[in-house]
């Protein structure tokens, strides 16, 4: 996620850091470059304008010129402004009301509302809640079936009442929740255009009838310049309390995140990072800013690790990584636990300085399966000392794992790459002197 934006910023910062002294002229040129990077990342042009003006104003201030590392100063300004744009601090969902607490999910067609409902329900159940899913999309063919099937997959109850009167479906669902002891009600409303007055009024009616504790606006993370128009219109009509960005596992640069937050002033609560029901992350502006700028997101990585890996094993593994003692055996041991945390590229993208190195490395799942088979076909000694794997051993391993010698070679090469990447992790120093303050999570 945000990979391309990140790599653009990494290039740009490298250039900027090279300047011993910054002149007004090269600051202005830098601003033009930032403008282009942001526009190509789908940040709304008006938001870009404001951003550039603020950064430029600060960058032209005295401190930058006096500083021995003016480039670093500018980077810090950009980072701060980015966090400012994305909003300060993580804001949690409000469950203070008397249960059942209704949550209303709204958005344009195809933004990913129904999938989000399922993800949110799962997320809340893991936090000890008892959610009820409500099929209030009576328009799209088979939308109710979709929610029913998702409910069945996740073993969660779904309230459906056919294809008439969504307001009534919602109010009845609250009664049902009260009766059956569900404490959160997630209302899946139909996708609609923000300029469709009648359909927007329907949402207002549902809101008035149900009085939801939270209304979440779901926006497509691949959206372009118009994202702000729809988001603003929904905000004016419904006064929603938070934003969810979906499809951020694609390679879109995700600039819509910045724009929507900036234009509506509402916090981004969650981001969707995959099709599986657990591909939902809480949104933290500061972490996202560092991720966009190529500084990694160690905190989320640690949290993910804590969620899925037991503490002791994680620490042991981390120590090995830090000391570059990571053998193929460890690799195999950690294989399943790592995969529980998400895809490898997802994990790697959170490690500072990794964004760049990952380019061109193919990390898809079937490759992972093959990798597992190859390692399983090695003897324990080979796994501990991969350098002893000579030609005839390679042949044997290939035959044993149903792969080719090339595959084995490739794996050994990748293992070498991984090891050198891990060595670098120890050396990675933050940008703008910011990162070293964050303790290295696993070492």
């Amino acid at each position, binding site marked *: 996620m945000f990979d391309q934006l990140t790599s653009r910023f990494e290039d740009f910062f490298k250039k900027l850091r090279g300047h011993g002294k910054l002149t007004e002229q090269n600051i202005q040129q830098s601003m033009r470059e930032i403008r*282009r990077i942001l*526009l*190509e*990342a*789908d940040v*709304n*042009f008006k938001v870009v304008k404001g951003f550039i003006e603020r950064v430029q104003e600060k960058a032209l201030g005295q401190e930058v010129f006096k500083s021995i590392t003016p480039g670093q100063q500018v980077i810090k300004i950009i980072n701060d402004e980015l966090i400012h744009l994305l909003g300060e601090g993580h804001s949690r969902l409000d469950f203070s009301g008397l249960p059942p607490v209704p949550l209303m999910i709204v958005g*344009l*067609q*195809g*933004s*990913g509302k129904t999938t989000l409902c399922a993800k949110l329900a799962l997320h809340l159940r893991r936090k000890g809640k008892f959610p009820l899913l409500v099929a209030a999309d009576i*328009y*799209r*063919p*088979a*939308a109710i*079936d*979709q*929610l*029913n*099937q*998702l409910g069945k*997959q996740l073993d969660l109850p779904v309230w459906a009442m056919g294809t008439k009167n969504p307001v009534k479906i919602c109010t009845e669902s609250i009664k049902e929740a009260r009766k059956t002891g569900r404490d959160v009600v997630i209302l899946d409303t139909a996708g609609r*255009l*923000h*300029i469709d007055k009648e359909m927007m009024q329907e949402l207002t009616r549902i809101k008035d009838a149900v009085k939801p504790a939270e209304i979440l606006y779901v926006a*497509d993370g*691949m*959206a*372009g*310049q*118009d*994202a702000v*128009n*729809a988001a603003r219109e929904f905000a004016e009509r419904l006064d929603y309390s938070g934003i969810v960005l979906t*499809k951020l*596992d*694609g*390679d*879109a*640069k995700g*600039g*819509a995140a910045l724009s929507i937050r900036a234009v509506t002033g509402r916090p981004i609560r969650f981001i969707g990072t995959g*099709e599986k029901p657990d591909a939902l992350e809480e949104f933290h502006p500061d972490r996202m800013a560092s991720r966009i700028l190529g500084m990694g997101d160690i905190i989320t990585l640690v949290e993910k690790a804590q969620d899925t890996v037991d503490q002791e094993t994680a620490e042991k593994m981390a120590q090995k990584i830090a000391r570059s003692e990571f053998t193929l055996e460890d690799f195999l041991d950690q294989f399943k636990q790592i995969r529980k945390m998400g895809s490898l590229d997802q994990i790697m993208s959170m490690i500072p300085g990794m964004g760049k190195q990952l380019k061109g490395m*193919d990390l*898809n*799942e*079937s490759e992972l399966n093959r990798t597992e088979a190859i390692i399983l076909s090695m003897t324990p000694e080979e796994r501990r000392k991969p350098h002893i794997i000579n030609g005839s051993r390679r042949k044997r391993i290939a035959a044993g794992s149903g792969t080719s010698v090339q595959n084995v070679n490739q794996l050994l090469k990748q293992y070498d790459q991984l090891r050198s990447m891990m060595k670098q992790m120890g050396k990675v120093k933050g940008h703008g002197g910011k990162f070293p303050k964050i303790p290295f999570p696993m070492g």
Partner: protein
Amino acid sequence: MGIFNKLKGGLSKTRQKLGSQLKNIINSHARIDDELYDALEETLIAADIGVDATLEILDALRDKVKQLSANGKDPDIILDLLAEIISESLSSSVVESELNLDHHPAVILIVGVNGSGKTTSIAKLAYHFQRKNRRVMLAAADTFRAAATEQLLEWGNRVGVTVVHQQSGADPAAVAFDALQSARAKGYDLLIIDTAGRLHNKANLMQELAKISRVLKKQDPDAPHEVFLVLDSTTGQNALQQAKVFQEISGVTGLVMSKLDGTAKGGAVIPICRELNLPLRFIGLGEKKEDLEVFDPAAYAKAILEPEEQPA
């Protein structure tokens, strides 16, 4: 209502705002200067045309303006010139030939990212070709998303076309293969295959798409005869990357742009047409089966740039 009116109707809100803003700027200028070009640049970028294509279009505009006589350089004509350039860059990629659908049955494979509007577009396409007296069959090869098959079945019902399907989780290539076999045996004219939405950077899902095409070729080496990529008009600069990868993997032959009845202008299609030389074939303007229009570059360029004459 003709194509143009329908398109205008769908884009009315957009154009009203855009038109009046631009008009104001143009009216306040006695001559064509840099400030005016800046305003035009913002307008094009706001339409998702992208930085590169916008700069190219503006360069072309400057060239055109240069060729005008001194007293012809009235700011009022600038929108016409701009519309002309946009329309040209969209038409140059419209292949002169008709759609490649003369085979019996011809096969259209529909691909795209999640939520772009594939299934709805298929229903509209089915209706469109049915009205042209073609016997249309649909294949539900999205066996992944919950209730995707049910959604297509419901559309099949509404439009009145046959839908071939298997159970959820079935191999999509097998569904496509069986559907083609059935369409051939029963003498259908056109088979439209729905596929699961997938992000283009998911290598294994993209391979699944390649497999569908491979399997179809076992029965008919020319199939699929058309591969349409459905693009959401609200998508930003990522659309170009989507189009590149889908074209590489599944040999996209044309584009369908959905959701143009909103305020998004879908300008991301312009760099796609310019760079990949892919024709935009159809545009979606609503949720009903008849809300599909054959794409007309001139009308589109005009509709997004011309000011509204009467408030909608």
